């Protein structure tokens, strides 16, 4: 008999209660139980980073976490990145402006990884961004446009912060 557990968690600000098999991966829970298919699964062994989501304040591989481990946590996925009015976030818009995606499959992980990094390091160098992106594989872009998008977004975020201050 499958071992079932009750979990309760918040995803993109919305509360969910569910009963899940203990072996269910968080990635599969998000994608197939909650139908949040924006998070992608690329390798299921924690290398490619396409499945990266925010768990509370830290990025994590949703293919290396069980859904039950997310009990009580707050998760943010690519579906939760846009601004309140639905328009693209500064980072998402920078990806578009800089051609930071081609097939788009690694993009959810790239966006989450960079969102976290730019939160902690608002003025990164190109080398720092390349280093932080080593946890995410992209086969299409050669990373150049992703790095450019990260730098562009950082500059715009700083400008927007200065404006608010």
């Amino acid at each position, binding site marked *: 008999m499958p071992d079932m557990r009750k979990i309760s968690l918040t995803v993109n600000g919305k509360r969910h209660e569910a009963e899940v*098999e203990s*072996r*269910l991966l968080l990635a599969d829970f998000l*994608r*197939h139980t909650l*139908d*949040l*298919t*924006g*998070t*992608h*699964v*690329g*390798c*299921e*062994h924690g*290398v*490619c980073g*396409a499945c990266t989501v925010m768990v509370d304040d830290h990025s994590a591989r949703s293919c290396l976490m069980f859904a039950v481990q997310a009990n009580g946590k707050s998760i943010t*996925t*690519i*579906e939760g*990145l*846009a601004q309140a009015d639905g328009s*693209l976030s500064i980072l*998402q818009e920078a*990806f*578009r*402006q800089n*051609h930071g*995606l*081609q*097939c*788009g*499959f*690694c*993009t*959810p992980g790239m*966006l989450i990884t960079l969102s976290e990094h730019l939160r902690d390091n608002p003025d990164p160098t*190109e080398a720092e*961004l*390349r*280093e932080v*992106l*080593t946890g*995410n*594989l*992209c*086969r*299409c*872009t*050669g*990373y*150049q*446009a*992703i*790095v450019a998008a990260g730098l562009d977004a950082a500059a715009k975020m700083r400008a927007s912060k200065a404006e608010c201050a």
Partner: protein
Amino acid sequence: MGMKFFGASVLRKEDPALLTGKGRYVDDVKLPGMLHAAFVRSTYAHALIRGIDKTAALALPGVVAVLTHDDLPEPMRSRRLPLYVPHPAIKQTFMPWVLAKDEACFAGEAIAIVVADSRYVAEDAAAMVEVDYEVLPASIDPREAIAEGAPLAQHGATSNIVTQVPVKIGDTDKAFASAAHVYREQFALHRGGPFFIECRGVVADWDAGTEQLTVHASSQGSHRFKRTFIDLLDLADNQVRVITNDVGGGFGPKGSFYVEYAALAAATMAVGKPVKWIEDRRENFVATQQERDQFWDMEVAVDEHGKLLGLRGRLVHDGGAYVTWGLVLPWIAATSVIGPYVLPNYQLELIVAMTNKITCSPVRGAGRPQGCFVMERMMDRIAHELGLDRAEVRRRNFIQPDQFPYKVGLIFRDGRPVTYDSGDYPKSQQMALDHMDWENFRAKQAAALKQGRYIGIGLSNAVEGTGLGPYEGATIRISTSGKIVVFTGATPQGQSHKTTLAQIAADHLGVDYNDVSVVTADTATIPFGMGTFASRTAVNAGSSVHLAAIEVREKIKKIASELLEVSPDDLELKDGAVEVRGVPGLRKTFRELAYNAVGLYGFSMKADRDPGLEATSYFKPEQSTYANSCHVAEVEVDVETGHVTVTRVLVNHDCGNVINPMVVEGQIVGGVAHGIGNALFERLLFDDQGQPLTMSFADYLLPMATDVPHVETLHTETPSPLNPIGVKGAGEGGTIAVIAAIISAVEDALRPFNIRLAEMPISPEQIVEMVLDAKAANIDA
């Protein structure tokens, strides 16, 4: 009419959905009642299957069915997968059965499909299916496989030689007899797999009532898939629809039709419910086709000035267990050797070997990187032997701009003579050298060496046959709402077709490119298609969109001229309407015209009109169009650890007219990263029993963000005379020549050790070993 969008770096129409998690990849498809599949795969590279016991698997709660070859419907059970690129020279045409019949020919070959109510249960059950194997000897190394007495890779084969064909230009023996110098090199060239981030996947849904099969597939050509389902099941055209929405990368191997897809069709027909199978990464390493190995044993003959007189030798290509791609890869490699150089005499014995490994498929570049590598390494060797600058040797051998169209003297993969249509190779190289300050690198290198740093520079040129036929189509239809839709069989996997094809249509129809929707790869919307591979979509689909858009524009003008009672010549298309030039109020909207074009219920149609505001075009290129590039790379080698840092890469690329520079730039830079992987990291390993040893991204290394430098690009635009929009393909040009340029740069960095490189990829271990050997030899001397 001015071109407003053609040539502009407009933003992609694909992006808003993909950036917000609204893409629709195959694993995002969820159908009512959908079940999930997993495969039982051969654990041996070569074995007879004596029996399959599915009792335990079927007893597991949640399991719906377990199908083996014997459970397949007819005629699928009696047919091997069809071979789509036959060639008279192919002597043995082994194609796979849908699910291994009585023999498994590579480790990972699908033997049974398990259908269950979840993927988790399907995998549990797959592990419970017991296969009784009789292990057979396997042929793994293609050079050994073609030797007399080698174990046969397939039961019933007469040998492991699939084909052996000669390639010939001129009189090579004569050229060698009179040559001032002859040099020999043996090349071991490996290319890995595609390693798209989205693995393969299919959702198959058989409706027993309407007897229709609907398949969602991650593919590079939905029409090819449709055709295969029809061939395997003897269905009619209306009974199969294949839809490919968003695809997470393809790079060649997603163009193949695999046995898993047919098994999914059999499964949905057997259980009466939709069935989904998404390949996991472990399966991807054993069951998605790979490019792998070529071994070239070559001699080059030159005169005293380093001018090429002849090239000869033998190429052994590892074709894998089945001949799905026939001669395609080694043939492209053999014809790509010539590159931008005058080669008067050439003779190659080309052998395709059957081995007990997954079938070999084209991967981005498709044999061109290997051909380029062979010639470019020979150029470096000639330079080394004659004490010439590497760029100068190339300069002395270039085809000159006044020699176009240039007939090489061979037949290309498109079935037509290799005829270069346009280009300026000397200029392309010179631009690249100037940009990289080639002349002054020696001084920099000497200064670095004084500090104990080993830096090097390398260059490489390639000519690339692109835009292969037979055709790709486009239907452009203006809906009765006035909305414009382009339908095409082209099947993008990240190449931005929805943007670039809209750009082409928009200019002719006088609208914003955002007002043109592009529907790709749904077989229900356009009857014929080939798909996206071989850098062919801009040429084929782009030209079709251009031609169809002009036809629609003329229809618009014709109907409007009748309604407005003016000459069509006085009309112009603007903002979704057509108006009389200089009389802004006098206009008809596309909506009004499309409504009119459909006709009125029951009323007679005018004799000179066809229904609807639409046109279809299938552009059929008369031959491939040849793009070219010059790559220059700089590296630094740590001789203690063998680590290579690629410090600079420049690509001067010529793909004719550019539809969207941003998109082309993205293709080239991404292609370079792929080539860096092929030069330094990516190697698929097998043991001598054919067991794959690289089964994860921890064993098989893809380039990371820190492995790729900021790639610099230059563009030369030599329009192609072979299609109406003057374009050439751009999808593979970044990859092809960069591998040879990097290896050349590594060799240049190791110049103090006098090391010669004839392999790709080159690993840190190999570098350390060669450096230690060189040091030891020095001491001995």
